[in-house]
């Protein structure tokens, strides 16, 4: 029957469709990373060494990583919790139906709002002459005199939550949808109170998803550069800003160390994505 031409079944022809993808990724994702990895083992003289990685323990680098980890942990936990409760509120919490689509659309916007606009918005809100700062002053509370600063661990956390919470909402909503109504009814039927249902069935089933997404949030915060740069002008001790400073050639005189710092970030990000994927697969098995 017919001269239906199919895409080549075997041999080299079958690679035709995916070749551009591999070439492109190779050129712009894989090769750069490999080069970075290789050069991170390069010493100033030109041989291979581990000293760059050992020098990661300088006060400067440790401080930057430490701050990044602090902020990332905080925003992952807080963003995760708040995001979860918001997602619960608009799906199972009994709010009117339109609230859900409003929330998802806004979450899509807010999670993409990061960078200069977000930093600017918060400067206008909680900066030294920001609107809310002024409002607080009217009420008798001088935030900046009390030691608060937007350009601090606390300030950055506050700003980062603006895209962390939406990310949590968007990822956890499908998981909440996956909670079958039948489970709640079966539990009720067997005599469980709503609290018991959540404790024994719903939360355990959701846990891989919640944990996994929090880890995703951690990675998201750890690798964030633009917002922090826009907010602090690159002058804050953060891992991503530190790398940025090396690109401009400022801070470190040992390029190999610079690459090692960057590779350190890649390892941490890679680990977080890996754990997230594993937990996602587990939750998919239960929530389908």
């Amino acid at each position, binding site marked *: 029957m017919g001269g239906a031409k199919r895409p080549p079944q075997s041999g080299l022809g079958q690679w035709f469709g995916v070749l551009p993808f591999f070439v492109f990724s190779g050129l712009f994702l894989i090769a750069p990373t490999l080069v970075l990895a290789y050069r991170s083992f390069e010493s100033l003289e030109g041989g291979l060494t581990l000293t760059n990685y050992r020098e990661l323990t300088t006060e400067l680098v440790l401080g930057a990583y430490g701050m990044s980890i602090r902020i990332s942990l905080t925003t992952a936990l807080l963003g995760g919790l708040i995001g979860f409760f918001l997602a619960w509120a608009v799906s199972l919490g009994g709010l009117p139906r339109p609230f859900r689509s409003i929330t998802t659309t806004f979450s899509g916007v807010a999670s993409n709002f990061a960078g200069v606009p977000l930093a600017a918005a918060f400067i206008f809100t909680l900066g030294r002459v920001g609107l809310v700062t002024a409002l607080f002053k009217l009420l008798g509370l001088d935030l900046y005199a009390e030691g608060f600063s937007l350009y601090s661990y606390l300030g950055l956390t506050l700003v980062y939550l603006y895209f962390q919470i939406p990310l949590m909402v968007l990822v956890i909503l499908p998981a909440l949808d996956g909670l079958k109504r039948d489970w709640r*009814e079966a539990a*009720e*039927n*067997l005599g469980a*109170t709503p609290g018991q249902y959540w404790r024994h*069935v719903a939360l355990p089933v959701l846990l891989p998803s919640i944990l996994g997404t929090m880890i995703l949030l951690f990675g998201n915060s750890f690798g964030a550069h633009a917002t922090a740069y826009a907010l602090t002008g690159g002058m804050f001790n953060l891992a991503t800003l530190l790398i940025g400073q090396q690109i401009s050639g400022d801070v470190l005189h040992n390029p190999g160390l610079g690459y090692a710092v960057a590779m350190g970030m890649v390892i941490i990000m890679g680990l977080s994505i890996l754990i997230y994927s594993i937990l996602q697969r587990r939750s998919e098995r*239960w929530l389908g």
Partner: protein
Amino acid sequence: MSGGFLSLEGVRKEFGGTVAVDTFNLEVAAGEFVSFLGPSGCGKTTTLRMVAGFEPPSSGTIRLAGKDVTFAKPNERNIGMVFQSYALFPNMTVGRNVGFGLKVRGRPKDEIASRVREMLELIQMQHLEKRYPYQLSGGQQQRVALARALAIRPQVLLLDEPLSALDAKIRVELRSEIRRIQRELQITTVYVTHDQEEALSISDRIVVMSAGRMEQVGAPFEIYNYPKSAFVASFVGTLNQLRCQVVDPAGGKLSLEGQTLLSNSPVSAAAGQQVLAMLRPEELHFGAADGENRLDGEVLSVVFLGGVVRVQVGIGSSVLTLDALNERRLKLPKVGDRQTVSFPPHACWVMAGI
């Protein structure tokens, strides 16, 4: 009638403007197995959910062992329910699923353990106690769901189309097993299904429902052979409905395409009027027989179903379906053959009010 173990009095459910269930009255005796049978949307599941407590009735009363439970919460009714989708908790093993009801009641650990073992023995799955639901087949999951519902020693067992998601063969096996367990435990049971063979084979009584209303309540034999409405007659089993003219009302004599036949009793219509004569395919046989009605027609189709041969015979513009039990020496009629069909008068009845 004295109140049954489970009684529904005047139960009615409205959603917005639509009536989902209209004035449902039923007394279920202790230990009885009742099925709600009907097509999708007839209100059978809604009624079941009202008994379970997931939907409050718009009006009416539901009583369990004399106590009014109409508005009691589902977790206060001590009713066991088996869902169509099994609804097993995915994060728990079979054993923990079955023991869940007892656990939330705060029963001591060893009591739970021995009850779980007892239930798993009942469904013959002791060796699968440590498995997770996703590792089980559909039939196995449903048995676990049954065990879980029974573990709490409920007063009533409710099943909502429990077998519709399973293969045909498993369905037949499992429905007998459900009936066996029910008999062994003597537990009052309400079973919802759209499969009439299922309902007929395992129920003590059947409630046939259509568009929210109860069409008929009775034992399977009664429902099948003495249907009270055209809907019940055609929904349960296959049915021949022949448009005949009344010849002699008192004698039950009818005429079909010029051939006369006798129905089972006097007809409540005037001579010359059109009526529908009902006839089950299995009551017809090939060839002529003494003392029986006889019709002549042409074979239109022959379908071999295995245990049964289904033949369609055209008589004028009417079509008669005949089911004959298969026999190895049977010579199947050919399409186009002339064929005589006969049946006793008592097999044919005229539905009152067409």
